[in-house]
């Protein structure tokens, strides 16, 4: 951070990096584009995930078969769980890039106004946009818990309750613990806020939003975020109300 008083600083033409990918990643805009692209992949995953979850309403066989399918897809040409692990690696890489960029960019913004306004009004932003950092952090914690919980059965279960690949029974048992069901619903609320701003923000960053379609795209983003929210919470709600047992 420099201002006009700094000594001996001037604007010169130099090579800023040894290759264009590094030059791109070094810039704030480059990182912002990486956040948008990795965010897009994660949105795609979440939509696939919610669609998969809804199979639980068809019955135990449907969701358990789906869980086996995710592991067996590609066999016999590919190994058991090979596709699953490729998808997991891509998702992990996306989360890592998304969070790294978010942390680095947030630092810049948080340091850019050392003396805050005493009186400031906002005209365009909303709660979703204002909670991207704190909500994103919470979602990161949720994902860690969620994998330890429903994928690995390491937390949130009484001994003997969790059985690998018995997805239907695992989900029903999971949400019989009411605090956990409520925590999932709150986490999906956080996901709604994150995607409410995130979906449109991704489109804006990648240059798809313009003066004419901005309001429409924001509406579509909110609708998708809401459908994802409704789809996810329908499972814990159905277990708590006894629709699924």
């Amino acid at each position, binding site marked *: 951070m420099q*201002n*006009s008083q700094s000594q001996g600083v001037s604007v010169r033409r130099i090579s800023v990096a*040894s290759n264009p990918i590094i030059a791109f990643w070094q810039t704030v805009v480059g990182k912002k584009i990486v956040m948008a692209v990795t965010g897009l992949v994660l949105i795609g995953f979440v939509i696939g995930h919610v669609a998969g979850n809804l199979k639980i309403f068809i019955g135990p066989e449907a969701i358990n078969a789906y869980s086996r399918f995710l592991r067996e897809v590609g066999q016999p040409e590919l190994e058991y769980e090979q596709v699953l692990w490729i998808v997991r690696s891509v998702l992990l890489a996306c989360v890592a890039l998304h969070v790294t960029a978010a942390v680095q960019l947030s630092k810049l913004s948080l340091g850019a106004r050392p003396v805050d306004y005493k009186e400031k009004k906002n005209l365009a932003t909303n709660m979703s946009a204002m909670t991207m950092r704190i909500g994103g952090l919470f979602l990161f914690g949720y994902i860690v818990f969620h994998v330890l919980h429903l994928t690995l059965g390491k937390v949130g279960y009484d001994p003997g309750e969790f059985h690998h690949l018995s997805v239907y029974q695992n989900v029903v048992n999971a949400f019989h613990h009411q605090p956990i069901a409520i925590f999932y619903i709150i986490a999906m609320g956080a996901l709604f806020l994150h995607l409410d701003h995130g979906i449109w923000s991704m489109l804006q960053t990648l240059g798809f939003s313009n003066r004419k379609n901005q309001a429409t795209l924001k509406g579509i983003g909110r609708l998708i975020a809401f459908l994802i929210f409704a789809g996810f919470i329908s499972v814990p709600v159905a277990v708590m109300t006894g629709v699924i047992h």
Partner: protein
Amino acid sequence: MKFALKVWRQHDANAAGSFVDYEIDGITADMSFLEMIDALNEKLLLKGEDPITFEHDCREGICGSCGFLINGLAHGGQKATTVCQLAMRFFKDGDTIVLEPWRAAAFPIVRDLMVDRSAFDRIIQSGGYISVPTGGAPEASAILVGKDKADVAFDAAACIGCGACVAACPNTSAMLFTAAKMTHLNSLPQGQPQRDARTLGMITTMEQEGFGNCTNHGECEMVCPKEIPLEFIGKMNRDLIRAAMNGQTEANVRVDANGKMVD
């Protein structure tokens, strides 16, 4: 008309500032906001007090010198209007009006409501120019510019560099300004030779100056007196992808006395 004012007074960049209360009477509805401060300053001078420092030049909304927050809104909140063009009829008789300078690490306060926006000049220095051949004036029709391109470039060139976008931004980001300046030149045939270097250079310099990162709140476009749209930030982002695909690694950026890039 009569107003109560709360004005941020600060002697220089390093001094502690505070709000000071003033009363002003005898203002007419057709006076501009700056004329109202002129009237107050005359009173202060007669009393032997320091007048309120604020920046201004053209007073017709085209130079970009003026600007501060009025009741929490950059330029006061009238659509597409700079402070110098804001008439006092915008307020109600008897209103209390709060005046605060742009607040940004990159815009140190010079005094009171005036800030140093030379960070913008250095962003321009890194890419806000084109190379022009010397010699006689070229034939007017030698370079054809499509109407669509000319319109985009003209809309972008309307930016007067007042700094309201930075001031209004919750992230203190200068992306709307930088995107406008870049879109102006990157849209035109004359801007093509330096296009990728300009994009990389202006974006890098913007960060070096200490501005924050945009998270698409959209506050900037709401207060912009020239109605520069967020859309141009999307164009800037695509131009950076283009620069990377073209292998661009050289750019004009800020370097120290040893020629090393500053953070």
